[in-house]
């Protein structure tokens, strides 16, 4: 019941704690990441107004750079560290999609009130939920492929980095991705 009011410790420590199985670390991390996403969205818009578009990978690395004290992560840990970041992103982004979904779709039960034609946009989040479901299925079939997707899609990692984490060749990562991607898309469409 009593919650400690100590300031949230560094993101790096939280990530470590979470990787080691401390679920409460996620609760602390989530709002921090959300805040970051929000400010990113704002900056994205202002850059668009100036005629710039933002590279996806640049975007991801910007998030990490802002979140994590890079100096404190030893070089050899880095790849593994990114893998953990990817898992975190997956959690948070899917959670986000879920919350938006519940706002916009109004759930599946009989409709009661207020959900008709709310003026809102973007169906990305709902697709993300379908993907999450398919990805969980894929993990049962082929855990490595699911990890590749997690790192590439949610974590924004480059092929080389993924290969390093999984200790396989970059070619294998490419092949895994190709197969997993096709399989997931099919799975999503067949639902």
């Amino acid at each position, binding site marked *: 019941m009593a919650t400690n009011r100590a300031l949230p410790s560094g993101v790096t420590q939280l990530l470590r704690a979470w990787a080691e199985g401390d679920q409460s670390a996620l609760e602390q991390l989530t709002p921090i990441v959300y805040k970051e996403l929000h400010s990113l969205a704002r900056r994205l818009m202002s850059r668009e107004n100036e005629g710039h578009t933002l590279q996806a990978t640049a975007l991801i690395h910007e998030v990490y750079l802002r979140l994590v004290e890079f100096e404190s992560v030893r070089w050899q840990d880095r790849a593994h560290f990114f893998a953990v970041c990817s898992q975190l992103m997956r959690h948070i982004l899917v959670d986000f999609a879920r919350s938006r979904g519940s706002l916009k779709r109004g759930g599946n039960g009989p*409709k009661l009130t207020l959900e008709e*034609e709310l003026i809102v946009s973007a169906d990305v989040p709902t697709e993300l939920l379908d993907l999450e479901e398919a990805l969980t299925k894929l993990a049962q079939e082929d855990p490595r492929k699911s990890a590749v997707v997690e790192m590439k899609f949610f974590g924004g990692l480059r092929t080389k980095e993924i290969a390093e984490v999984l200790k396989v060749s970059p070619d294998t990562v490419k092949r895994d991705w190709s197969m997993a991607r096709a399989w997931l898309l099919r799975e999503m469409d067949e639902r």
Partner: protein
Amino acid sequence: MQSERWRRVEQLYHAAMELEEGQRKAFLDHECRGDPALRVDVESLIPYAQQTGRILDKPALEAVVGAIADDLRAGDGNKTGAIIGGVSKIRIVEKTLATGTKLGDYEVKSLLGSGGMGRVYRARDSRLGRDVAIKVLPSLLTADSDRLRRFEQEARAAAALNHPNILAVFQMGTYEGAPYLVSELLEGETLREPIKRGRLSVGRAMDYGEQIARGLSAAHEKGIVHRDLKPENLFVTRDGRVKILDFGLAKLTEPQSDSERPEGTETGVVMGTVGYMSPEQARGLTADYRTDIFAFGVILYEMLTGKRPFQGPTSADTMSAILIEDPPAVSQVNPDVPQTLQRVVHRCLGKNPEQRFQSASDLAFALDALAEASGVVAPLPKKDPDASSWPNFLGKHKLALAGGLVLFALLLGAALYTGRIPSILPKNDQVTFSGDAYKPAISPDGLFVAYVSRRFGEPDKLMLQARNGTKLELVRATQLDVPRWSPDGSELLFSKYEPELRNLNQNSAVGPGIYVVSHLGGATRHIFQADYACWFAPDGSQLVTASASERDPDFKGVRLVNTLTGEAKEVHLSGYSELWDIDCSARAGLILAVTGTLGNRQIRTFRPDGSEENKLLETDDRIYSARWSAAGDAIYYLHGKGSTKDFSRVSLTGKVDQVENGLQTGRFFTLSRDGPRLTYTREDRYSNLWRIGLPAAGRSAQPEISSLTSGTSFYGKPNFSPDGRWIVFAHGPNRDETNIFKMPAAGGEPIQLTFLNRDWATNPAWSPDGQRIAFVSNQNGTPTVWTIGANGGNAQLLEHTNMLNTHNQLAWWPSTDIVYQQTGNQNFVRVNDQTHEETLIIPRDRATGFLVSPVFAPDGKKMAVQWRRDEVGLWIISLEPYSETLVQSGDLNPMGWSPDGRYVYAIRSGREIVRVQVAAPNDVTVVATLPGDGNDAGLSPDGKEIDVSVSEAKSDVWEMQHFDPSAR
């Protein structure tokens, strides 16, 4: 886990992908001989490999950030903000409550349905043995505590309406952070269903319409606007009664007030269901009760025609139609609709709010009259007993009016046509947005509002705010109070108190002084020592002042003070024990005083020479403030018991009328002299429990402070059980509606011990053996002492125990005696829990002043108490034989003794917890600084932990126009 089959599919997939497109078929034909399923499995993957632009093709982060950006572009930033604020609780939204889950007294039976605004369950009310509906709202919508509070306020107000056409809400609460509403369980369907089946008969549409209008009218009268009216929010019960659902919910999704909006967004966010939106909503402008009238028109139109008046292929088209187009005439779609009814519909649909019906009651009236006149027989199955309580004017006079009805309808039609339906509803506008504004006073010309800005831990400021929002700080002091404008609007009087200057400045010698300052600022002028004052002479040359009897015990009455010379003339009054408030009317040449005797209040008026004293009224309600009407012919006053407040008017002949303007918040109001306007405050105060872990003696470590409860309700009076395993406390929606709860000291679910409704039970104190808990409650009208078993059961009244109406006056002697403070007796009384025998603690000749917070030493021989007499401070009273010692002066509220009896812990000035050494006065150590305004606290028996109740408060000034709809 990887199956043979999977590996084979993968192998073939990669092989096929490496081939040219034309070769794949032959390759697969060959490889999948005799296994057509395998072939399908591989082949069906290939087109996906060639698709582009799918979700996986750019990082999820980009897509999500893009979606947020889309929202921001669409002006939907607030909602994203809400999501972001609420992320840690998102899972609650997803969860469906299992059968058997307990929410307070209610046990969930089944899910009835779900929607964007939460899930609705059927639940059993175990106490009353009935089924209810519980709507659990998504916590992410309510992560913004401010907004949640506003919603709560409104939902509570709507719940209090108790109207047959409004869903009855029984209770509100939170479950794992998600707020829920308990309401009556209805059987039937939403209005959407019959409309889907086709248009309604004219008679039925008019009947439903009239019911909806009556419900709306009841809400609007209390200043509550729905803002999201639509067929989905209207429920038709099996017996044909229409109920409006979800009052207040629209508040959760609507834009925040101006000051809270992020910079750069000029108008509000467009939310709500497009088809039923009013033009002002579509524009993002302020939506008042006439927005509901518009939505009502859309619904009536839809009931009569089966179609919506404004309907486009996209939301944007629909909105543009709402803003610009005139809908097709109702009779064009349904020729059965009479002209008169058609006029009513179209009059609701005016683009400009001024063009619509100006009140829902006019609308209900018009529909009722039309139904009668046109001979359309509405279905009449309303057999519920509460139907008779409808405010149905026509119903009572139908027979008498029958002959004149056609004529009446014609007249009404003419009135509709020319747009003259005279009725003005009160209109509320927020004036300040800083959350720190108290005691407003509107200037005689109505151009300025003066108020006291009060923030925790800072000196008070007397502020002046102009119509355009410009602010000016006039005065700053430790305590400022009740500013009032001089009759010519050039000066303000106020009371000022600076206790820390007590001995340096003679003017502050005994409590507050009355000062005057120019409305342009500058030096202040001391006039007289008193608590409150009002201007008397129209030229500002005379004030009337008064003080609390505590400060001025030898004088009963008011003083007429010359503002230039300071000369004072006494006006004696009698027959009361306390003077609470005064106000002057130069116009009437009269002064009013709110006085109090035991448990009741009087309003009396008298001439400045003391003549013509007249007791206008006597009530057992609390009177929060009373003010003369501009004309000096009546007095308005805000009064009530507990958290329910009413606004009333008493004439000089003593005739009392309740004024239906919805004002029931705050404690203070003032009236303008130039028109029907009043300023008042809307105040929110909530308190939570915090735990302070004390560092071991002699260590200088920082104490650990953590929160035990969080929310927007009241948690107070924490007290540890003698064995240290439990804490007991008072909890409820606000300070005036509380029950006693206990909770394991180590944390866990609270257990409710008392079950009062709208009354309060507070100040729980454990018996030394831990078997019983004594508390103070007003459940039988006046504050009395009760006891209850530590595990609940029936509470027992201690006969003859009349408490003062304060909350800090009860303790349990380390024996079988309860100690409490008796009304009219500045003393503590010991009463034996078994024999009920009573003894006074302080010798009669010493008993003066005011005693608060008695706390006994572990050995039962000494008592620490705050004593407010000539010297306010922490006193230690030895009991046998009696002796008294001032240990430390100042605003110290004792809460516990260290186990060895050497120290007393106390809250100082609501800001910090100090430890005072009993044997060595002036040895005071600050133990912890509180995270807010500290009220009261309990010390664990081992002396290691303190649980403290800390308050936060918000108050803003509002202005109400046409505050007295009946005075015209």
